C-alpha cells in the first residue's frame, strides 16, 4: 500500500469571490476517485475510536472500507442501517467535535474526512435511478402521531413506519424539515437534499400533514384519542433577544426571522418571491455559533459591504463548526471578538443606525467550561450599522408544554424526558431533539428520535 497523505483529500469548492454572489452550495463534494483515495487513508483500526464519537454509532470503518473497495451500494446500506439522513449529517455534523475528533489518524495529521465520505456516499445514492426502499414490516394496526418534522421527527417517523406502524407527522410550517429547511441556508445545505429525504420518508409510507399547529388545532390530549402514542419533536424555535435599549428598531432581526425570510420564504429572490428582507450594507450579527455564521454569510450574499460577527468571547470559545468559521473568514466576514452590544440608536424614522458596544475581557471559566466574559467599564464605543441580526440562541418552543397538562418541564423550558427511552412524564407521550435538550445538533436530534422509536415500538408491542 502506498503511504497515504497526512492530510485530508481536499474537497473542491466555489471560490470565495464567486460564492458570495450566489446561494449555491459552497463545496462540490468528492468524485468517486477522490472518495476512494480518501477512504484508503483509513487504517481500519481493530478498535475504531471514531465510532465512539458518533452519537448514532455508525460502523465507520466498515462503510469506509466499502467505499475504498468501490462497493458504494454496500456502503450506503451500512450507513443507512444507523443513519437515515446521511446527506444531511455529512454536511452539517460538527465532525471535529465528534467522529473525526477521535480518529487515530488525527493524532499524526488530519483525521479521515468521515463527514465528506458520508456526504459522498449519500449523494452517490441520490444520483442512482432507484433509491432502495427497505423492507417494511407487516402492518400492526397501531397509529403514532409525530409533532414536528425536524430531524428528530423525521427519524422517529421513518423508524416506526419500517416496523409496520402507521405514522402521521403534523408540521406547523408549510414545508417539512424543521431547522433544516427554515434555518440552515441553501449554500450549506441545499433544500433539494432535505426535500429528497422527506420524499424518502413519504415513500416508506409516512403521512405528512403540513400547516398544522398542534396545541392550537388539536392538543396532544386530543391526538391521544386517535393515536396510540405521540412523539413531540417541536425543536427549540423560540428566539432570544437581549432586551437592550432600542432592540426593536427597524432593521433589527432575530436570526430566526432573518434566516426564515431568506431560506424558507426565499426573500433573496424578491420580488420573484413575495417576501421582502432588509438588505443592509453594514450588517452586525451578534453571536458566535452556527446560527451567527449562517446569518453573517447570508448577509454577504444579500449584498452587504461589511458583514460583522460581534462575539463577546474570543475565537477559541466560538461554538460554531470550524468549517463554517473558515468559510466565513474566507468570504470576508469581519470578526469582532470580546465585544458586546449594549444599546442601539436610530434615526428619526426609527431605523437602526448605530450600535453601541462595550469591550470585554475573559475571567474565570464558567459552568460551560469557557472563560466568562466580563465588560470593561468605560470602554463603550459606537459603530454604524443598518441591519442587526441577534443570533444569541433559541430555547424550546413553549406551545406544546403550555397546552399539555401532565408534561414535566425542565429548567430551560425543555420537556423532561428519560434519556434511555425518550419517555416524558405523560403516559404514551415521548419527546426528543431540541425540545428536550435545548438547541443542540442534527445528529443528536436524530439519535433521540431513534431511541424514542425503539421505546415506542416496545410499548406498542405489549399493548
Amino acid at each position, binding site marked *: 500500500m502506498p503511504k497515504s497523505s497526512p492530510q485530508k483529500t481536499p474537497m473542491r469548492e466555489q471560490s470565495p469571490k464567486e460564492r458570495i454572489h450566489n446561494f449555491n452550495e459552497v463545496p462540490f463534494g468528492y468524485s468517486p476517485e477522490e472518495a476512494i483515495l480518501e477512504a484508503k487513508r483509513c487504517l481500519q483500526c481493530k478498535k475504531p475510536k471514531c465510532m465512539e464519537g458518533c452519537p448514532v454509532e455508525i460502523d465507520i470503518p466498515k462503510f469506509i472500507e466499502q467505499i475504498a473497495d468501490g462497493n458504494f451500494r454496500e456502503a450506503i446500506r451500512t450507513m443507512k442501517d444507523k443513519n437515515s439522513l446521511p446527506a444531511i449529517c455529512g454536511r452539517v455534523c460538527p465532525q471535529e467535535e465528534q467522529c473525526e475528533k477521535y480518529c487515530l489518524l488525527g493524532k499524526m495529521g488530519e483525521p479521515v474526512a468521515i463527514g465528506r465520505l458520508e456526504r459522498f456516499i449519500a449523494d452517490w445514492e441520490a444520483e442512482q435511478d432507484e433509491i432502495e426502499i427497505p423492507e417494511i414490516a407487516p402492518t400492526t394496526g397501531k397509529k403514532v402521531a409525530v409533532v414536528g418534522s425536524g430531524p428528530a421527527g423525521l427519524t422517529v417517523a421513518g423508524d416506526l413506519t419500517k416496523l409496520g406502524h402507521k405514522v402521521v407527522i403534523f408540521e*406547523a410550517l*408549510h414545508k417539512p424539515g424543521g431547522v433544516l429547511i427554515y434555518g440552515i441556508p441553501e449554500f450549506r445545505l441545499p433544500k433539494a437534499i432535505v426535500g429528497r429525504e422527506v420524499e424518502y420518508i413519504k415513500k416508506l409510507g409516512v403521512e405528512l400533514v403540513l400547516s398544522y*399547529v398542534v396545541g392550537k*388545532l*388539536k392538543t396532544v390530549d386530543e391526538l391521544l384519542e386517535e393515536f396510540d402514542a405521540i412523539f413531540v419533536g417541536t425543536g427549540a*424555535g423560540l428566539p432570544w433577544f437581549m432586551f437592550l435599549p432600542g432592540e426593536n428598531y*427597524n432593521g433589527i432581526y*432575530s436570526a*430566526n426571522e432573518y434566516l426564515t425570510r431568506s431560506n424558507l420564504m426565499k426573500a433573496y429572490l424578491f420580488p420573484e418571491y413575495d417576501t421582502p428582507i432588509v438588505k443592509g450594507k453594514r450588517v452586525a450579527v451578534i453571536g458566535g455559533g452556527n446560527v451567527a455564521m449562517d446569518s453573517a454569510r447570508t448577509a454577504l450574499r444579500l449584498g452587504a459591504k461589511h458583514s460583522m460577527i460581534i462575539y463577546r468571547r474570543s475565537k477559541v470559545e466560538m461554538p460554531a463548526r470550524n468549517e463554517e468559521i473558515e468559510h466565513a473568514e474566507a468570504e470576508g466576514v469581519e470578526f469582532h471578538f470580546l465585544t458586546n452590544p449594549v444599546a442601539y440608536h436610530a434615526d428619526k424614522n*426609527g431605523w437602526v443606525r448605530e450600535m453601541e458596544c462595550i469591550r470585554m475581557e475573559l475571567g474565570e471559566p464558567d459552568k460551560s467550561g469557557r472563560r466568562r466574559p466580563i465588560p470593561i467599564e468605560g470602554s463603550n464605543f459606537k459603530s454604524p450599522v443598518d441591519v442587526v441580526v441577534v443570533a444569541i440562541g433559541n430555547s424550546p418552543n413553549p406551545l406544546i408544554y403550555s397546552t399539555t397538562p401532565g408534561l414535566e418541564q425542565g429548567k430551560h423550558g425543555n420537556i423532561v424526558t428519560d434519556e434511555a427511552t425518550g419517555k416524558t412524564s405523560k403516559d404514551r407521550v415521548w419527546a426528543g431533539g431540541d425540545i428536550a435538550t435545548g438547541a443542540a445538533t442534527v445528529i443528536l436530534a436524530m439519535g433521540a428520535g431513534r431511541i424514542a422509536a425503539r421505546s415506542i415500538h416496545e410499548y406498542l408491542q405489549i399493548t
Partner: protein
Amino acid sequence: MNKILRKVILAPDIKLFEVETPPIAEKVQPGQFVVIRTHEKGERFPLTVADVNPKNHSITLIFQEVGKSSAHLGTFKEGDEILDVVGPLGKQSEIELFGTVVCVGGGIGVAPIYPILKALKSKGNKVISIIGAKSKNLLILEEEIKVASDKLYITTDDGSYGKKGFVSNELTRLIEERIEINRVVAIGPPIMMKVVADVTRPYKIKTIVSLNSIMVDGTGMCGACRVEIGGETKFACVDGPEFDGHLVNFDLLMNRLSIYLKEEKESLDKFRSDLNKCCRSTTDNQQS
C-alpha cells in the same frame, strides 16, 4: 381543502370570503387569526377570523386589498382553493361578563370586532358599538353589527353617512355623557387605536386593542411581530394579538409596520403590471 364557498365584495377593495376549513372552523375562538399563503412563491400574512359557520365547516375572512398578497387573494373566485390556511393562531379574546362594553371598529377593523362583540353579547354584556370608515361606501358589516349590538353609532370621516368625524369622537361623547362603561374593545388602524386608548386613559376604562404587527410564522418562532407592552417586548402572534391599549407603544408599532414600504410598493406595482400584461381578466369585477 381551503375552498372558497362564497365571495362577496363588501366595498371597493374590501372582500369577504367564506372558506371551508373544517378543523379550524371547529376550534377557532373570537380574537384569533389565521396565516395565509396564496401561491408557491407567496408570503405568509395574517387575517382575523371574522365569523364561523359550523354548518358549512367554514370560516369567514374579510380583507382589504392593500398590497400584493391581499390583492392576489382578491382575484380568487368561488370554488378556488387557498394554498395554505394555518390556524387558529393567537390568544382568544377575554370574554366575561363585564357589564357595559363599547366595541369600537374602524375601517377594516370592523371585521375582527364582529365575532368579539357577538361573544360579549351572548355572555350577557350590554354592547354599544361604534363603527366608522373614511366614507359611506367603505363602511362594512353595518347590518350584522346592528343586529348583534344593543346600540350602534356610526361615523364617517367625510360625513357622507352617520356622524361626521372619527369613532373616537363618539366614544368621547359617550364618556362625557357619563354612561357607565366597564370596558372598551377597539380594533382598527394603529392611529385609531392609539387615539381611543388616549381617550379612555384618564377615565381608567380598561381598553383592549388588537395589534396588527407584521408577522411571518405566527407561532412565536421569528419575533417579526414583536411589540412593546408596558416597556416589555412581547410577540403579538402568541402573546396577543390583544393587549391592554394603555400599555402599548403605538409609535413603535407604526414604525415597524413601515419596514417594507419600499418593497411592498415594488411588489404591488409588479403584480399590477403582470396582471395587465398577461390577462386583462374580469376576475376582479365578478360580483357574487
